[in-house]
């Protein structure tokens, strides 16, 4: 049998397929826009906005304040602790004392309101992570928390079990379920 396909000109093909072409283009544009806003747009690699725009880059990076100054329990407890409001004011009573955000900090202090920081580092609730053990083993904070000193707003992470296991295997650490992490 002969080729029965009717010959059509390109113009008529476009005219016939206007709908699908528009849809495809739209999808492409939307995808690009989405990828741009998600990965390229300034601030997209930042974590959630915090009640006070505290910058880890400035404090831990530029000013080189030790992690332990603000998170003092990290070497003696499971939890590192976050600084009480009064601790911020130790310095900020003297440094940029009249800055609007510092005034907000004062307000937290004067009204005895705990600062509602947004949590960024997540572990599943059935996991009991012991900071003290890791600090004592001289694991640097950055090995799990990344380059905190290079970020303004921490993005944080939802840690997965593979992340822990990989390192525990490498370092020949405890791999027992309950004895190590779960409880």
């Amino acid at each position, binding site marked *: 049998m002969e080729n029965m396909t009717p010959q059509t000109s390109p113009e008529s093909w476009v005219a016939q397929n206007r709908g699908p072409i528009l849809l495809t283009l739209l999808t492409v544009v939307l995808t690009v826009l989405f990828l741009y806003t998600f990965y390229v747009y300034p601030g997209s690699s930042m974590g959630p906005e915090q009640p006070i725009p505290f910058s880890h880059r400035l404090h831990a990076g530029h000013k080189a304040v030790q992690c332990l100054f603000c998170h003092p*329990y990290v070497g003696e407890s499971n939890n590192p602790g976050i600084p009480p*409001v009064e601790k911020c004011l130790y310095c900020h009573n003297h440094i940029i004392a009249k800055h609007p955000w510092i005034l907000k900090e004062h307000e937290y202090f004067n009204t005895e309101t705990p600062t509602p920081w947004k949590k960024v580092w997540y572990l599943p609730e059935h996991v009991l992570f012991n900071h003290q053990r890791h600090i004592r083993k001289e694991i640097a904070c950055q090995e799990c928390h990344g380059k905190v000193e290079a970020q303004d707003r921490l993005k944080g992470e939802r840690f997965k079990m593979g992340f822990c296991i990989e390192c525990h295997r490498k370092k020949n650490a405890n791999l027992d379920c309950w004895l190590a992490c779960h409880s």
Partner: protein
Amino acid sequence: MKRRTFLKLAGMGSLSFAAGCSDPQKSIYSLVEAPDDMVVGNATWYASTCRECPAGCGILAKNREGRVIKLEGNPLHPINIGTICMRGQAALQALYNPDRIRTPLLKQGGAWRPISFKAAQRLIMSKTGEAAQKGRNRVRMVTDTPGDSIYQLMNGALGRWNSGRAVVFEPFAYESLRKANEDVFSVDRLISYRMEDADVLVAFGADFLETWLSPVEYARKFKEMHAFRNGDKGVFMAVGPYMSLTGANADAWLPCRPGGETAIVLGLIGEALQNGRGTGVRDFVRDIIQRAAEPYSRARVMEVSGLSPSQYDSLKERLFSARRPLVLGTGTGDTGGNSFQTNMAVNLLNAVLDPKLAQFDFESRQRVEMASRRSEILALFAELTEGAADVLMIHNVDPVFQLPPGSGARAAMERDALFVVSFSNFMDDTSRLADLIFPTRMPLESWDEYEGKKGFVSMLQPAIGQLTDAPQIGDVLLNTAFTEDKPAGSYKSYLMARLIQAGLIQDERTWLEALRTGGVTSGSGDSATKWFIPYTVSDAFHSVADPVTQELVFIGMPSIRFFDGRGANRPWLVEIPDPITKVAWQTPLLVHPETVSAKGLEQGDVVKIQSKQGSIEAPVYESETVTPGVLAMSIGQGHGTYGRYAENQGINPVSLFPPDAEPRFGGPRFFIHPVSMHRTGHRTDLAHTDGSRIQHGRKIALSTSLENAQSGQRDPGGGLTMWDFPITLPLPEGYDRKRDFYPVIEYENYRWSMVVDLDRCIGCGACSAGCYAENNLGVVGEKQVLNGREMSWLRVERYHDPEQMEKITFLPMMCQHCDNAPCEAVCPVYAPHHSAEGLNNQIYNRCIGTRFCGQNCPYKVRRFNWFTWQWPKPMHLQLNPDVTVRSKGVMEKCSFCIQRIKAARNAAKNENRQIRDGEIVPACVQTCPTTALVFGNLMDPNSRVRRLVEDARAYQVMGYLNTKPAVIYLKKVVHEI
């Protein structure tokens, strides 16, 4: 809708559902100021005092991030030395109770209106001011047993209001014991007993393991004399019409008629004197005693008491051959009409058997001795009903619930002219009738002092910030009764000043030291005893009532779970079953099987019991722990209103009792006859947690005779049957190629194990309550207990001996952490995982809920979460942050308190050493009043557990299944009586 459209929508729906399901972002709150003694993630411990009963045990409150999550006994405290009972554990659930009243409530037009604390104080000031001007004694106060400081302040405040002293009301006030002590030793006091020194102990009803005087202290002392040690153990015999938990722990329970105890004791006195005992007693006194005992010949004793001759003889033989005998009298209430005479006779018998009274400690007196007699309480309410006062203040007691109807409490409260202030945190039956409910701080939030037993003033300090804005009762009194010349600015400074004045502390430093250790030693009480007032002795026994021979007698039993009823709104106490009946949530009526069949009843039939006072309906529980004709019921439940866990839950036996006090000693009667019992035609399913009352010949809770224990006789080994299967330790040495299918499991350094000494276990359930508190166990409620869905990781099993049903053995059962665990082999997803240290780990996030493991576990210790259990706010504040809260669809079980093992390991690693023996103390082991549980490492040849498993009494529950359990039991040692 087309099929295709439906699928599209369904697909979109599930995708968007999945996308929307990621955890919402959480906040993490900073402190404003960091307290000096707080390290986030580590616990801070505050020493305080338990106020759940008048005993006053020392406690340590574990504070994590500002909230108390666990109570433990204070090891430095002389009363309880580191342990507490289940009521002590559950004190947290009063603090965090969701039904706690948060602001004062004023009754207006029959409805409650919340008002501010300031307004409430002003109201108290104006009401008391008006009353004080009207005349003398127009303001009255009724309180539970207070510490001395607050008691003096109460009296000071009442003095300002032109009124007399506060009245101390305790439903369990030991009137008959005090009267007997007064008449025999001329001390109207409650003394202590050196039970630990006795070699033969006899109790005529004293339930010293449950509520009597100081239960945790006496549980410890009891096991000091009664545990098998150095080849011997003391003898304990209990006599009474029903078998309490204390009676269940006796070597023999000798059932007698209600009220028949006096005859038995007098008979024993007579025989002792005939045998030439009592030589140390002055002659004329001996004559009087002899005359009193004369009518009670052996035959008469049998006839009157209903005791069998052989039982009487064995009691006599044991008691008379004792070197250091101690006889205890009745329980707190009168259960047969002769409680005073029995206590009197018991005091005399002690004096005849041991004229030096070596086991009596007249100096260490119980603080509850300050409680008013029931007759005085009734007189007060009668006066109030007649309008003798204008203001009544009620502090921490619930007389409307605790007193029988017709006793005047309700009538007095309902009088319009009486302004009733209830300093209560709960809407109980009394508060409901009050005009003003003024919640005050709970003991765990307060500064105070309490001397439960003379010799040691125990401190109370806030172990938590405040959950409500409520002030302490002391501050309320300071603010309302005193205007310009306040004795102190705050109750705390008042307290310190008083302690300094008493010479107990000197300054801030000694004050802090007292707070840190839990208290300070004080002087002992006066011990002046004048011996025997003869005329009272001869007098007392003129009026011995005939024992109850009527067909049916109704008796109320003080309860280890609820005490006098105050525990009924703590969910752990309601959920943990009664130690004898194993019934949770409900209040069954204990009836002897003979009576049950004579009445044509069956277990579970709801019967109506009618007394002169009224009637109650209760389900029948067939039990050999009561004598035929006795209908016995635990006191404590059946509140009209007391929060969600107590309201309309169970039955209150007190409502059947006569309202008046016994005239001789002014105490309450906890019995009534005649009563009638009729079937109602209804049936109730009993919410019991036991599978069976007997062991069906299985190797579960074993006992051995004293002779066998002394000779160190071991079970035969070397076979494969139930009785000759050898004890197989969960260690490589327990591997046998012929028996084992799975390869040997090797351990490095540690293999955790527990040893349970059944000879020390009294079945009190403190371990179980400790476990609920430590491990965030869900409370499931009556309906789900009926479905068999209770969540206890550790339960105390109770087994009757089928030959002698009144013989009971208790067995704490928790995950056995088998080396050859049946659960591990059947899980399709390996959720039960055998740890490197022998623990059987349950990995919650791996579990998919097939329940194969629970099915395959021969010990039935695995618990499945059929629902996501709720902790109504603020109960969730009690949750232990170191333990995962499990949710629906997940299996769980005892972990040997893995969080505590981890904590000990962490400490050991920090110090670069091995974990020491005894360093890990699971919650159950920690709280056991009789140290029946020991935890440790089987790999350490010198550990306590390793040495205990070598004991000839050691065995494994159903070890013949070759599960190789890591919980090793030691057989109970029984005297053949």
